[in-house]
């Protein structure tokens, strides 16, 4: 631990889990953690791993491909929108939204790819699009 920390970018080792997650999102990356003791993927980001208790579990960046575990179309006065649970290939699950198709056309088992939304006034956040590439879809 020598030298002066760089000031032109955040020091990821000292960021809170939430801040580090957002820093990855800003780069278009869906980040998660992995328990060094068990190898189990962890999401949402934490300062301590569930089960093993390992502090500050190390981070990885997802390849961005997942499968719809379950889905619903929420019917509201403001229109319909999708809410879905996505199982990522790396072994973690997150709540998100599938876009790029009708909200009630999303299907369990459908393969999806992550995309970062940075355009609606929120902190950047991940959404998903159906995977249309046939090779991906057949896997």
């Amino acid at each position, binding site marked *: 631990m020598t030298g002066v920390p760089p000031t032109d970018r955040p020091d990821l080792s000292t960021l809170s889990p939430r801040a580090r997650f957002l820093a990855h999102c800003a780069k278009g990356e869906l980040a998660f953690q992995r328990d060094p003791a068990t190898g189990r993927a962890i999401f949402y980001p934490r300062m301590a791993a569930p089960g093993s208790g390992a502090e500050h579990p190390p981070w990885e960046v997802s390849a961005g491909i997942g499968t719809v575990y379950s889905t*619903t179309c929420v019917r509201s006065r403001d229109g319909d929108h999708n809410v879905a*649970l996505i199982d990522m290939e790396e072994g973690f699950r*997150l*709540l998100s939204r599938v876009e790029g198709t009708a909200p009630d056309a999303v299907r369990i088992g459908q393969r999806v790819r992550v995309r970062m939304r940075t355009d609606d006034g929120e902190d950047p*956040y991940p959404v998903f699009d159906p995977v249309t590439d046939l090779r991906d879809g057949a896997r």
Partner: protein
Amino acid sequence: MSGVLRGATAIVGVGEAGIPVLSEGATPVDAMALAAVRAVADAGLSLKEVDGVFAAGLQLFMPTLSLSEYLGLTPRYSDSTQVGGGAFLAHLNHAQAALAAGLCDVALIAYGSTQRSGGAKFVTHSEPNPYERPYRVPGPVAAYAMIAARHMHRYGTTPEQLAEVAVAARAWAGLTPGATMREPLTVAEVLAARRVADPLGVRDCCLVTDGAGAVVLVRADRARDLARPPVHLLGVGEAVSHRSIAQMPDLTVTAATQSGARAFAMAGLAPAEVDVLQLYDAFTVNPILFLEDLGFCAKGEGGGFVAGGRIAPGGALPMNTNGGGLSYGHPGMYGIFTIIETVRQLRGEAGDRQVAGAQVGLAHAPGGFMSSQSTAIFGTAATL
């Protein structure tokens, strides 16, 4: 320890207030206090004898303090465990332990809500989840819709089978004085109702009402001297599996597998010995999962199990005999009412909806997003 606690305490008083709607300006504490004094009076006790206070709520930050102040109680033991709608069954577990240990002698468990009359002013002190906030998740319904979708995908459960839960509840409510919705309901009407979150429509969802409930628990020796037939607590089980729906390991299996097993082990009973069931029906899919996870049918077979009137009046397994959260009333958290209805059935005072000869009753409630599960099994004096 199970042998020590089985039947060692009994519910000796129950009270309700405020279903379906309180008068303008009434507060959650107004409702809770009214139910509490009714429960204490039902037991033939006085307020000054209450020395254990248990409460939880969505609107009250410190509910045991609010209730104690309101009624002039000065408890020596209090517990505001908040694990969602089933908190009051968890309170039973904590109260029986406190009673058995001599830490209190008269335990009052209470809840009150103005969810309906409060309308737009209704607030919850639940914290926001930054990983879910951007997705506009409308309260619990989206989570339970995804549970239903997954169960349908995995086991072929149908919307018609979900609807059977609502239809049976309405038939029971038709026999229940004071139930909010009593007119008959058909499967076709449930399926045609406004969609809320696919595959759930508005008739798959619990009502939004005001309301309050309270029960009084004492040691069995004290219960024998009181006015009402004691309803003994034979077994209780709690379980916690997650907080947010994204962390639920398998959407088709709840931790009722654990809470139920714990309650049955303490009670020394099996599902086949239960005469009447109250399974918190915030959404129609919920009792289907609980019937499976509590051992009344095999995993995946809950949809077929509830069809054909089995759980309806006259059916083989009477369930949610007051109409449940779907038709009786649902003031935000319903768990206390699963206890109250069980007590009424085991006292034999349920009128037109009375299950003949009911000796053993089971109450079960989840909390959050199937996050916590709490199960309680009760019996008449004949079951000791």
